[in-house]
């Protein structure tokens, strides 16, 4: 490929947040029609750099050039004008609006002062045909699966004629199938001259799709490499600064007595549809049961019911030998259940509370954090400092609001809190979503170590790799039912993939 011209160039970008140097003299450039991957640990400063390019943050110093011309970007308005579009790590969509409304927002066409819905719908249909991004312009965004919401975000950028597209961890929330669809779309976009910055933590994806790879660590650029000259090991080492064991080491499980027994459990979703249909399984102490399945096959509702967040519509849950059907989350927590929820921002954290308080959200009322109803700052502080150290949570202090942490570090706060009290069952739904390889290594080792100490683990994940790496037994969920439960050693990736897609086990 001949060297394409540089469309976007950032030079010497520096950004300080109170207590953190998020970007330190960062240089970055993007060529026309390329996919430039940006890798880095949680908190390395990737999102910060992108927010600066997109005008959401003002850099302390540094220069940005678009098509060789220096530009001043004070707000997203300026960046949109310069042809930059961004799909944010946490989507920026108004859930109650239609697709068309979300797309036109901020760039509306009107006729005699009235919003011209028809024109927008027409244009969206054009774009979706041109780039093969299938979408219904009249659907309500909040009711769409995340993969489709992401398409809305991409069309939103294209609608504004973005020639430079920033994708901040677009695959973190996608199923493998959706991720593959996204890559097809990305290739199509670059073929048409769009340049893409692609942030991810998944090294396989980077190697498969990127034209160039830049790695950041602690606010600095460590280097830029060609995917042909590198591999997963090397990239991981570049990111973390040390060798990373990408494969989980584990001894055979030594299962003990049953900690969780689920019998004929049925659950309805918010529309009243039966999304979990008579599910039966057991988790024993000292084993990891993985639930594999394409997202949206009832896993979310199943976990919510097991953890007391959603009523069941039938069936029984026994936990620690007692009937716990319909019991409150607090009782379940006190009986020794830990829960890593799927949506960290909605169910896992109070974003406007400091890290230290989030770390005691499940135990704050008990000794030593609460004594006779009074919070004990010294104990909470000591706990926070210990967990921040143990779980390598990158935060300037325990008293920063958790919402200010990078996405991956928010996740680590939850994991730290849930694993740090007396437990005998861990229910983990996408426990490593959005984490860097170093942190995934740590959490995986931690989960295996806890299993070896006799903890029962129910792992729900859309990452087949994660399921394969950790589970002792694997249950496949399809359309609200467990279609098969197998020994993890006796099954292949391909076989699991088929079952997840609905193939019948006997065939």
């Amino acid at each position, binding site marked *: 490929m001949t060297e394409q011209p540089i469309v976007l160039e950032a030079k010497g970008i520096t950004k300080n947040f109170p207590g953190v140097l998020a970007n330190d003299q960062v240089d970055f450039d993007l060529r026309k029609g390329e996919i430039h991957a940006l890798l880095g640990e949680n908190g390395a400063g990737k999102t910060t750099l992108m927010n600066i390019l*997109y005008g*959401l943050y003002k850099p302390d110093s540094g220069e940005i050039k678009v098509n060789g011309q220096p530009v001043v970007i004070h*707000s*997203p*308005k300026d960046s*949109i004008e310069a042809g930059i579009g*961004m799909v*944010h790590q946490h989507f*920026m*969509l*108004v*859930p*109650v*609006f239609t697709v068309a*409304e*979300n797309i*036109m*927002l*901020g*760039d*509306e066409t*009107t006729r005699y*002062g*009235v*919003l011209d819905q028809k024109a927008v719908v027409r244009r969206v249909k054009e774009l979706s045909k041109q780039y093969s991004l299938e979408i219904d312009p009249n659907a309500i965004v909040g009711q769409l699966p995340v993969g489709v919401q992401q398409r809305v975000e991409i069309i*939103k950028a294209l609608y504004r004629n973005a020639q430079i597209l920033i994708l901040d961890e677009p695959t973190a929330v996608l199923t493998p199938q959706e991720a593959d669809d996204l890559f097809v779309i990305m290739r199509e976009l670059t073929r048409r001259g769009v340049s893409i910055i692609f942030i991810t933590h998944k090294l396989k994806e980077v190697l498969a799709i990127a034209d160039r790879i830049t790695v950041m660590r602690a606010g600095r650029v460590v280097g830029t490499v060609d995917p042909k000259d590198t591999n997963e090991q090397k990239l991981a080492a570049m990111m973390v600064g040390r060798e990373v064991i990408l494969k989980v080491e584990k001894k055979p499980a030594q299962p003990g007595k049953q900690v969780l027994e689920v019998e004929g459990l049925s659950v309805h979703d918010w529309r009243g549809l039966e999304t979990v249909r008579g599910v039966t399984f057991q988790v024993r102490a000292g084993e990891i049961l993985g639930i594999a399945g394409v997202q949206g096959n009832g896993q979310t509702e199943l976990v919510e019911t097991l953890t007391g967040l959603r009523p069941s519509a039938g069936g029984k849950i026994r936990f620690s030998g007692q009937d716990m059907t319909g019991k409150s989350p607090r009782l379940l927590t006190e009986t020794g259940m830990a829960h890593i929820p799927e949506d960290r921002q909605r169910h896992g954290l109070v974003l406007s509370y400091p890290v230290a308080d989030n770390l005691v959200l499940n135990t704050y009322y008990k000794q030593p954090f609460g004594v006779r109803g009074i919070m004990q700052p010294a104990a909470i502080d000591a706990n926070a400092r210990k967990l921040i150290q143990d779980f390598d949570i990158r935060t300037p202090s325990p008293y920063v609001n958790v919402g200010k942490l990078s996405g991956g570090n928010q996740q680590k706060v939850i994991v730290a809190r849930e694993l740090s009290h007396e437990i005998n069952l861990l229910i983990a739904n996408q426990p490593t979503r959005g984490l860097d390889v170093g942190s995934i290594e740590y959490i995986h080792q931690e989960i295996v170590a806890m299993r070896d100490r006799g903890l029962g683990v129910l792992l729900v994940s859309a990452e087949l790799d994660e399921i394969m790496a950790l589970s002792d037994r694997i249950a496949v969920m399809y359309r609200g039912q467990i279609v098969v439960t197998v020994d993890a050693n006796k099954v292949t990736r391909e076989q699991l993939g088929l079952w997840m897609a609905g193939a019948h086990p006997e065939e």
Partner: protein
Amino acid sequence: MDWKRFSFITLVIVLLFTVVVLVGSAAQKPVVIIASMLATTLTVATPLTLGALSGIFCERSGVVNIGIEGMMLTAAFFGWLAAIYMNSIFGFSSMPSLIVGVLFAILSSVLMSLLHAVLSVTFKVDQIIGGTVINILAVGVTGFLNRQLFFEKGSVFGGNVPHAPGTLPIIHVPVQEGVEAICKLTGGTEGCQTLANAFGKVFDQQPITIAAILLVILSHFILFKTRWGLRTRAVGEHPRAADTLGINVQRMRYLNVLIGGVMAGLAGAYFTLESVPSFEPVMTNGRGFIALAAMIFGNWTPFGAWAASLVFGAAQALQINMQVFRDVIPAQWTILQNSYVVGLTPYILTMIILTGIIGKTIPPAADGQPYEK
């Protein structure tokens, strides 16, 4: 609005009307009673409708405003004061005095809403506190000035409250003529003419009442059909998303709170320039809060809020008509002679409606949350 709410509202209004018709049938023809109830309902619903619209603009943009009561009270006082000054000090005749009065009512309420915007949007003070400040301030300021200006010895009017320039005149809306014309075209039966006579005057109302109805339609149009409305709702649902698209969140919130100020100002003017030609301390009497209830019941939509306001209006119309028909109330219905029972109806309805038995309403997602970059 969903059918549950709609049927509830229809049911309550029909019920209230039926009671009055039954009681009053000894003295009046049912059509006449219904028509008069309708007219009264429209009239007394006015401050609630406008107050609810005020709340809708604020909250749709993400700013909770419980200070509407105070904004109305301020407007009622200053509108009245301006009208009196124009009339008895500067010697203008009634009409220009009243118009200036309305303008001052709006101005004073907008200033109050500006205070709310500064507190809650710029300084990110808790919005409930901002609203409470306004409510307390309004009671204090209007009460104090009312005493100082009119009742203290040596004050401008020296305990001698001048005659206010009256109230805004009724505007004739030619509904009757319209119906009669249709009657003629279709062969004009007697019944048709009776209808025209009875209901032809329902919409002959004072200007603020008519404006309120038009503003319901206009607000709906603005919120759901225009660029301004789309952006307003976006800012109230997901301000960060709006920000990433280059929309100035602070500015949108400021302007919508000020629009809310205009609405509350008109509502305030209703009290002293349209309903009665006088001011009494704390005369808004909780209407600002009932307006918020109407806004919630109407699910933050103009038409929904209007319908809910009409329910409260009908309850008050019941109360007013019960006084009219006091002497003809049948013996077995003595309970309706008790003015407490009847007077409590609007408030009991508020409570029933607010308990949410008619289904859940969903506020804008970012309602009440200051936006931080």
